[in-house]
């Protein structure tokens, strides 16, 4: 049930598994775990029709590639023709007549669209508990958040409801739920995948990307979503990994810190080189992010707020309303500081192959809480969950979250790799090389840290 795309794809190609059986299995899982609220719309009839068509094509020898016959879910912020795009909101949905380009590319590759996943309303949150379709619940502890905003996408993968998911990431919304639920989430370089047909949150920070069960699956999906082959140039056996000291790592839950330190030791023991790096302006990241994302979100939502303000969740509405008060001069200041942050991050990457840091400073929080304890001090949940990811939405550097073991309570931990500007292919190659060591984190099935 939880095979990877590359594993099940090989079996489909060999004729050992039928896409129809796969879709039926996913539909059964969706029905069995409907309590988790992972899906908003399940496309049962069309998915079965698409699976029958894929099975017929494959049996005729017309195999399209690794995604042919594979059930994929789409975050309900992304247009699928003929299906309402709700954005997880009670605001009247969009009724797209065309697929978003990323969905169109999946269809051309033979993928089957199984349904549209739940999310934090309008992708404006990190916990997926503010949705008109109910809170997305964590698969290992339903009293906890699955992370967000692409929470339903992550749960769908963990629970065998699909084999790959399309998510979006404006401050960490792919990587955060990937880390919280123990899967792989890729935020490509900014602009690499088209955001056309995707409801915007912040047009200069929005990214689309794949969520999968392995780095290889992320590569396969990314290749299709981008429409061009990934350059598989080999990486050196000894990689230099930069650890950003200061702001980014100074407040971590002790269990996350301990796991991260063990991961560094394990990587060193395998011949990789760990170096400390400094991102000079990193402490300004939340201020820069706030002064860009709030006004950009308000610009899109102004017209909807004028007509349907009472249909938003109160917290989402209030955040959007504050964006309408931001001054243009402060937006410009933030954009100027953003350029410096981008140069700073690129500067650190000149001295190493990738940055390595946790994805989240905490494990999945309980649903509905506004504040969490991080290393002995209370902090707003949203601020804590965004702290290690949002910087790379501002700078546009590609980044990926990999599962890196679990806490003593059995909750997943994520490790994040950040690659050179504009070079998602290189990041994927590095992530693939490190995946066996990273996923063998504490408490993982692989066990140990060696």
């Amino acid at each position, binding site marked *: 049930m939880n095979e990877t795309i590359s594993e099940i794809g090989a079996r489909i190609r060999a004729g050992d598994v039928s896409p129809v059986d796969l879709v039926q299995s996913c539909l059964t899982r969706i029905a069995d775990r409907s309590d988790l609220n992972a899906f908003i719309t399940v496309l049962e009839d069309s998915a079965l029709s698409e699976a029958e068509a894929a099975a017929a094509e494959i049996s005729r020898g017309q195999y399209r590639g690794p995604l042919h016959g594979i059930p994929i879910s789409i975050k309900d912020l992304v247009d699928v023709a003929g299906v309402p795009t709700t954005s997880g909101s009670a605001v009247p949905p969009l009724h797209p007549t065309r697929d978003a380009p990323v969905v169109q590319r999946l269809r051309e590759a033979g993928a089957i669209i199984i349904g549209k996943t739940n999310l934090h309303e309008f992708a404006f949150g990190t916990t997926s508990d503010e949705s008109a379709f109910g809170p997305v619940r964590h698969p290992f502890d339903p009293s906890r958040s699955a992370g967000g905003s692409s929470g339903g996408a992550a749960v769908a993968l963990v629970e065998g409801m699909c084999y790959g998911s399309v998510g979006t990431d404006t401050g960490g919304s792919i990587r955060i739920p990937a880390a919280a639920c123990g899967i792989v989430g890729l935020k490509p370089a900014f602009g690499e995948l088209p955001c056309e047909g995707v409801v915007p949150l912040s047009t200069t920070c929005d990214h689309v990307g794949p969520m999968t069960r392995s780095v290889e699956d992320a590569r396969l999906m990314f290749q299709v979503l981008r429409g061009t082959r990934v350059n598989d140039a080999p990486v050196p056996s000894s990689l230099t990994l930069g650890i950003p000291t200061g702001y980014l790592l100074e407040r971590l839950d002790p269990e996350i810190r301990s796991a991260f330190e063990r991961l560094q030791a394990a990587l060193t023991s395998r011949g990789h080189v760990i170096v400390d790096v400094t991102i000079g302006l990193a402490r*300004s990241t939340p*201020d*820069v992010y706030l002064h860009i994302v709030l006004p950009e979100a308000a610009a899109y939502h102004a017209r909807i707020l004028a007509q349907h303000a009472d249909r938003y969740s109160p917290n989402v509405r209030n955040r959007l*309303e*504050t964006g309408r*008060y*931001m001054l243009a001069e402060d937006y410009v*200041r933030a954009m100027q500081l953003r350029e410096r942050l981008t140069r700073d991050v690129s500067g650190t990457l000149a001295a190493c192959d990738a940055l390595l840091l946790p994805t989240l400073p905490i494990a999945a929080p309980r649903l509905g809480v506004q504040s969490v304890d991080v290393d002995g001090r209370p902090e707003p949940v949203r601020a804590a969950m965004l702290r290690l990811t949002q910087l790379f939405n501002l700078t546009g550097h590609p980044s990926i979250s990999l599962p890196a073991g679990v806490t003593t309570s059995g909750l997943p931990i994520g490790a994040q790799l950040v690659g050179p500007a504009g070079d998602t292919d290189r990041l994927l190659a590095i992530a693939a090389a490190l995946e066996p060591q990273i996923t063998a984190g504490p408490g993982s099935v692989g066990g140990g840290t060696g």
Partner: protein
Amino acid sequence: MTVHDWLKSAIEDAERRDLPALKPLLEAIAKSTEALRKAADAR
């Protein structure tokens, strides 16, 4: 516009629009704006 003046004006407008819940959010943004301007001025 100073951050102080901006905050005063924004809170007044939010109250006029019957959105009192915005006040703590706007106060938090004002602190962030102070920090943003300080970082920008330090260049």
